[in-house]
């Protein structure tokens, strides 16, 4: 089932939550919509589900206009951030609920519930009530309930936000596995960029009601289309400076293009692309953050602060206050137009 959102605009009074948004999701694809709070991602999802009324815009399921169809008739599955499973029913009854409403015969319904429970590994929990389940378990029940009616589209609204860090990593892989296994078209909203990158076929980065970038995860990471995308995607965050904040000679020595004077730009490089090299530019280590496998060094050089990500073995002897040298490759620099934030493809001259 292909999902197409065309020209979606959603206004709440004076506030425009979504601004002329277009999105195409291919059959069986998982598209992650990622952005910070208030960017309009949940509203967009709400539109696909039928909860959010659009000021203008169309929604198509496989060429069929479903914009005016009520949520109960869209045959979609939805997993809420707070799971929203019925507290007065057992897990099994929760999962069976959509089938009961569709008047599926009891025995057949129970069969399907059992299959779902198997898929999500909650077989022993079926008779329990939500109050007796942990957050992760409730989430699986919510997912089972969403999938049991074999929906054409699966929508997930920050489903992992309320889970512990470890569980989150575990569950996202599970969700992806199940999604691929069922081949179901999926829209996954999250504010966690790592989550989005790890499981999506395509990532849509949203900001202020618009999609700034839509691309495969690797592309979004390696060649971010806008400044916002570059800032939002990737942790630790990309180093960014205004082009005239850096000394021209310094800039050239670092392998970056000399855009000072030619065009107002924002220049960026990811911390992992600054390599320690005694022959390079020198600076003083202001702070050393241990991240486990890597070390993040905050280096003061040329009046600016640089973040560089170094393997912990390499950085072993380096302490705060030490002087280090670092270099960068010309091809790892990113340039963004200062006015629009759009990516600039500048070739080395």
């Amino acid at each position, binding site marked *: 089932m292909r999902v197409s959102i065309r020209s979606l605009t959603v206004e709440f009074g004076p506030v425009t939550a979504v601004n002329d948004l277009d999105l195409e999701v291919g059959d069986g694809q998982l598209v992650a919509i990622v952005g910070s709070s208030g960017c309009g991602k949940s509203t967009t999802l709400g539109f696909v589900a*039928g*909860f959010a*009324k659009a000021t203008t815009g169309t929604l198509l399921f496989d060429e069929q206009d479903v914009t005016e169809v*009520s*949520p109960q008739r869209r045959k979609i599955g939805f997993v809420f951030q707070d799971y929203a499973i019925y507290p007065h029913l057992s897990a099994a009854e929760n999962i069976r609920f959509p089938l009961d409403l569709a008047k599926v015969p009891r025995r057949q319904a129970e069969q399907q519930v059992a299959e779902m429970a198997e898929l999500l590994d909650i077989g022993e929990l079926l008779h329990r009530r939500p109050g007796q389940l942990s957050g992760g378990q409730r989430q699986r029940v919510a997912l089972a309930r969403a999938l049991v009616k074999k929906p054409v589209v699966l929508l997930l609204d920050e489903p992992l936000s309320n889970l512990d860090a470890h569980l989150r990593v575990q569950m996202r892989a599970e969700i992806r596995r199940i999604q691929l296994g069922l081949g179901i078209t999926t829209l996954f909203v999250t504010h966690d960029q790592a989550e989005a990158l790890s499981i999506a076929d395509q990532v849509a980065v949203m900001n202020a009601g618009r999609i700034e970038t839509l691309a495969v995860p690797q592309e979004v990471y390696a060649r971010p289309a806008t400044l916002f995308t570059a800032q939002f995607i990737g942790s630790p965050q990309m180093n960014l400076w205004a082009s005239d904040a850096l000394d021209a000679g310094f800039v050239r020595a670092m392998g970056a293009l000399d855009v000072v004077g030619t065009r107002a730009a924002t220049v960026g490089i990811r911390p992992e692309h600054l390599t320690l090299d005694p022959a390079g530019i020198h600076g003083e280590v202001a702070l050393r953050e241990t991240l486990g496998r890597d070390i993040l060094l905050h280096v003061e050089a040329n009046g600016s602060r640089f973040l560089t990500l170094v393997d912990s073995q390499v950085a072993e002897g380096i302490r705060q206050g030490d002087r280090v040298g670092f270099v960068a490759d010309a091809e790892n620099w990113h340039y963004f137009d200062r006015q629009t934030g759009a990516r600039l493809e500048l070739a080395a001259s």
Partner: protein
Amino acid sequence: MELTRRQSIVRWTLIAFGLFYALVPVLWVLAIAVRPRNAFTFPLPLIPTEFTFSNLREILTGSDGIGWLPYVNAAIYGLGAAVVTGVIALLGGYALGRYDTRYGRALLLVFLALSLLPDAARIVPLFLLYIHTGMYDTRIGVILAYAAGSLPLGIWLMAAIIRQIPIRLEQAARIDGAGPFTVARRIVLPLARPGVIVVGTLAFVSGWNAFSLPLILAQSPNIQPYTVVLQKYIVAEQSTVNWTLLSAGSLIGLVPVLLVFGFLQRRLLAQGGLGAAVRAR
């Protein structure tokens, strides 16, 4: 939840019916109270054609009226009950709210049971008790009687509200060097104020609206509230009822309560107050 057009119509019809049912009687009282005495042709026009405030004046100052005193009495009972209940409920509510012991919980249950006993069932017993203790036919007797009636619910509400005040605040104040009275005065009281207002308001409404207890316990006309005194306009045969004055008198009885209620509506139904208490139950 998004509703279809038909469902929306059903919902708003229901609301319209509810509003109609709730407001028409009050509006009818108003409609009759503003009609002059002789405008009673049959059948009455639904909307009065002539307006007058003479009935209101007559009730309060006229020879046929009941004067200010009955309303003053009702106000005394209301305020008295409010103050007494407010104070006592605050003290008791604090004790039961902060100390979650078995006795405390049992006591709350007892108070819950007591709150179910209605005023009317107390008429006879209170009458007997008051006669025995000389509190019969006194204002303070009526005040205390109503305070005792509002107390159980008041304590329940206060306990629920006190529980919502984090005890950490009191502990922080103690660490800052405040003694128990200071803590009470500067931490608990200000934070519990909305709750006290709610409890006081409910007690006031109960006291102002008092009927069955003053009917029996207040024999002398000079301490009777308007609720009792207005009866004089209803004689056995309906045809001799003085409708205009009765409705005017009722209207005056309605106004303060509606004002108080309207003014405090947000407080009454906001996160303090009844919502908390209902959830606490």
